[in-house]
């Protein structure tokens, strides 16, 4: 489109005239949707895989969805007809729901959310329903927190690689900036003190006021939970700099490793920082889109110990309230403790088995991943498949995988990774058969390349050495994190 505009001057002038009438948000690329992350999606839309109707189509591995446990929710619905038909104790509450638009949200829903969040954290910490602010998905929750904490031009520090959608959610309409905290594969992409300090200095060099740090824990795209060491580091850092910490814990219920999920709330408790000034600067974002696999229902939440933030965010939630029929349905679902405990356990089991399948499938193609213990994806190491250690080569490889292998995976550069060659590959948004097919295609592709031929020739040797590498990564990570789940 733009190429043709350059040749037609009149048309170009007209279009730029028209664009001047609109806001800068329309004309800028702040929504971030020209990034490769989204282009892969567009390719998928044009040619989506279907087992029967389009077996040669593109397999979607770029969408972090959890499709593994719908059957559990469906069977709950079958056993709970009241919730399903907008009734309470057999009486229709349709009118009440139709009219309910109170931005404080449904009390029984917030109570159920608070208890669910507690359950995910092993009931080690408590969440006060009054400190929960509902939002239309964590997309809205994150943006709202930015509006509350940052002026246009203020910066938040984010560890790389990070979820590409943050460029839109945190910056687009708020005018806030993101300054990356560079993490590298040398230590499994963990956050270090020096990386934090460097990012802070960098922000100052750019003339930006740092308002806080935002982390996703467990991490997207890494699929790893933050270690206790990292969490302590973060809390100490924000304490000394007098800034905020946002912990997006949207994947907290997808933790399948043998370690337990450690929330920033755990750390505040353990450091005896509850009810202090610091605790007022720590905020948690949550959503039911990943743990329960319900992204369509748009259920997000902000949890904050700061009354002013709760108050401001509550008012802002008017711009994206949760549908009352959805609040009602989910309050019934999440109040059923028998269901939630069974669900969380089964969800973790299925995710773990699915992740194993992906990892071993990749291994047989001579590909390793960062060892993960959470999330709906793996952070896959394809550096050895790059022609050169550059992002151009990464993009080339990505294009081959998208257009030739017909897999939509997400290149590390779209996640602002500083090292070329890493890709995020999702495993929970398809059937087992589809996953197997994807792995088969990938293996075929790898074996067809020079690298691949080398691999298949000495595959046994290579796999052995790769496994060694994997083990040392694992060992490396374990030495930093809790080994015994019960230990605090």
């Amino acid at each position, binding site marked *: 489109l733009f190429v043709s505009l350059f040749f037609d001057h009149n048309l170009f002038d007209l279009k730029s005239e028209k664009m001047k009438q609109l806001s800068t948000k329309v004309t800028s690329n702040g929504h971030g949707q020209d990034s490769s992350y989204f282009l892969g999606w567009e390719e998928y839309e044009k040619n989506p895989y279907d087992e029967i109707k389009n077996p040669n189509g593109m397999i979607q591995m770029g969408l972090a969805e959890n*499709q593994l446990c719908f059957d559990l929710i469906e069977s709950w619905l079958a056993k709970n007809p009241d919730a399903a038909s907008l009734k309470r104790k057999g009486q229709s509450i349709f009118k009440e729901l139709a009219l309910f638009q109170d931005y404080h949200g449904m009390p029984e829903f917030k109570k159920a959310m608070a208890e669910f969040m507690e359950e995910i954290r092993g009931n080690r910490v408590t969440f006060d329903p009054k400190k929960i602010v509902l939002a239309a998905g964590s997309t809205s929750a994150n943006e709202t927190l930015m509006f509350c904490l940052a002026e246009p031009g203020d910066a938040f520090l984010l560890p790389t690689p990070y979820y590409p959608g943050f460029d839109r959610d945190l910056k687009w309409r708020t005018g806030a900036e993101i300054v990356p905290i560079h993490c590298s594969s040398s230590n499994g992409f963990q956050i270090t003190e020096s990386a934090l300090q460097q990012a802070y200095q960098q922000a100052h060099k750019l003339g930006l006021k740092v308002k806080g740090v935002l982390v996703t824990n467990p991490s997207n795209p890494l699929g790893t939970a933050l270690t206790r060491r990292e969490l302590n580091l973060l809390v100490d850092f924000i304490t000394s700099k007098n800034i905020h910490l946002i912990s997006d814990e949207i994947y907290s219920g997808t933790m399948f490793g043998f370690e337990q999920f450690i929330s920033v709330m755990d750390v505040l408790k353990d450091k005896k920082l509850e009810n202090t000034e610091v605790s007022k600067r720590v905020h948690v974002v949550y959503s039911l889109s990943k743990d329960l696999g319900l992204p*369509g229902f748009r259920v997000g939440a902000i949890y904050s110990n700061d009354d*002013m933030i709760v108050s401001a965010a509550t008012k802002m939630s008017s711009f994206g309230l949760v549908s009352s029929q959805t609040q009602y349905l989910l309050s019934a679902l999440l109040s059923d403790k028998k269901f939630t405990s069974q669900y969380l356990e089964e969800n973790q089991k299925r995710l773990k088995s699915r992740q194993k399948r992906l990892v071993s499938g990749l291994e047989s193609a001579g590909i390793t991943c960062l060892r993960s213990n959470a999330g709906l994806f793996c952070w896959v190491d394809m550096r050895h498949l790059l022609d050169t250690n550059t992002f151009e080569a990464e993009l080339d490889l990505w294009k081959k995988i998208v257009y030739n292998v017909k897999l939509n995976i997400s290149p590390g550069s779209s996640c602002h990774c500083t090292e070329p060659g890493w890709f995020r590959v999702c495993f929970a948004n398809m059937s087992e058969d589809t996953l197997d097919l994807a792995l088969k295609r990938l293996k075929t592709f790898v074996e067809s390349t020079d690298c691949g031929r080398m691999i298949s020739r000495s595959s046994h040797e290579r796999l052995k050495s790769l496994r060694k590498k994997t083990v040392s990564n694992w060992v490396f990570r374990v030495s930093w994190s809790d080994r015994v789940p019960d230990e605090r």
Partner: protein
Amino acid sequence: MGSLKKSGGVNGAILSRIATNDQHGENSEYFHGWKSYDKDPFHLSRNPHGVIQMGLAENQLCLDLIKEWIKENPKASVCTPEGVHQFSDIANFQDYHGLKEFRQAIAHFMGKARGGRVTFDPERIVMSGGATGANETIMFCLADPGDVFLVPSPYYAAFDRDLRWRTGVEIVPVHCSSSNNFKLTVEAVEWAYKKAVESNKNVKGLLFTNPSNPLGTILDKDTLKNLVRFVTKKNIHLVVDEIYAATVFAGENFVSVAEVVKDSEVNADLIHIVYSLSKDMGLPGFRVGIVYSYNDSVVSCARKMSSFGLVSSQTQFMLASMLSDDSFVDNFLMESSKRLGIRHGVFTLGLKKAGINCLISTAGLFVWMDLRHLLRVRNSFESEIELWHIIIDKVKLNVSPGSSFQCTEPGWFRVCFANMDDDTLHVALLRIQDFVSKNSNKTAEKASDNDQVIQNNNAKKQKWKQSNLRLSFRRLYEDGLSSPGIMSPHSPLLRT
């Protein structure tokens, strides 16, 4: 920099200006009425002396029809045994284009609500978090911080928050007055535009609600056409919030801006519509807002922004089914219009008995009530607030004072009539009648009762002659109709 919390330290911990300023408007004194209601809510049997909520523009008159439809169509819910086979697909669906069936059904419904006089393109339907979200989104798309939108007053109080709070956009009111029944004129808009430009403001557009909140009036076709030509000439945007489109219960047909956009003198890229199901269908809880723009770039941008306020797929799915049911929709629109008309008639007649007039209106869920004659000091906003406090605290009705809508003339109040049952409305009317008769006893000069009544009647007749109110009410008064009765929406008495 707004109020600084005692959060210690100099820089980082301070919250944003947006979080600490009052631009959300909720600390205004106008929330006194709501607070009083929350403390002491009316209930026919449990709390018959409580405050009756007449400040909430809700449409509760036709929820029974919707409830019935839902009961008879279990397939429309993804949770029932009949619909659960769709559960996983729908629960998983977060595409910001929205369900195609939903967009088609909304476009279809919007056309029907406008009597089939226009059609809407489903590809231009963009979701938002209610009209609240839609109005904010359209501002983000059309204006930058510091830009101005002209908005005719009196206007919906929450526009101050929706259009300005997080967007940084400024509202410059186009004041309308009772001298011409608060009608919006092109001249008034032109004047306001000129003044704004002269003070170096960057005017980006004009936004108004049609049918109007709080007036309940609809814009005539000629004025609408001229306004559309005006914005085209000045190359500024026009946003019409048509949230009350299907609440028309009498009189002329509602003319949507969609009907005049095809005019050759109109630049369609400047025309945008905001819509919602919160008023027409009475479903504010379901958060269904729509941005509809004739400008492709705006559609594209608004759609990306809709990620911040998508409609729950559970709700999309249900409404897609409901709104494509033609026989349901046709019956619903007809019944809704009828019931609103009856309710409006009962209420205005009851007010008449108390000597209270309202602006003639043919739409909306409220009346614009004229209480100027009850002000202690004429033309004083202080008196308006005083009167308002009396109405809340003594008469126990939560109504909305005109000043909360930026009305420039004291003494007008918006009173909602569709958010309660018939019995409650009856109680409200009795209280009003009671209050007015007590009040006129107090303010009358010392004279015999008869003289007093005659004087009051004369005063009222004077007011009749002075006011610009239409013929029909005078006829009602002189006919001496004493009982509310049932007024057909097609009654010649209502048609003006």
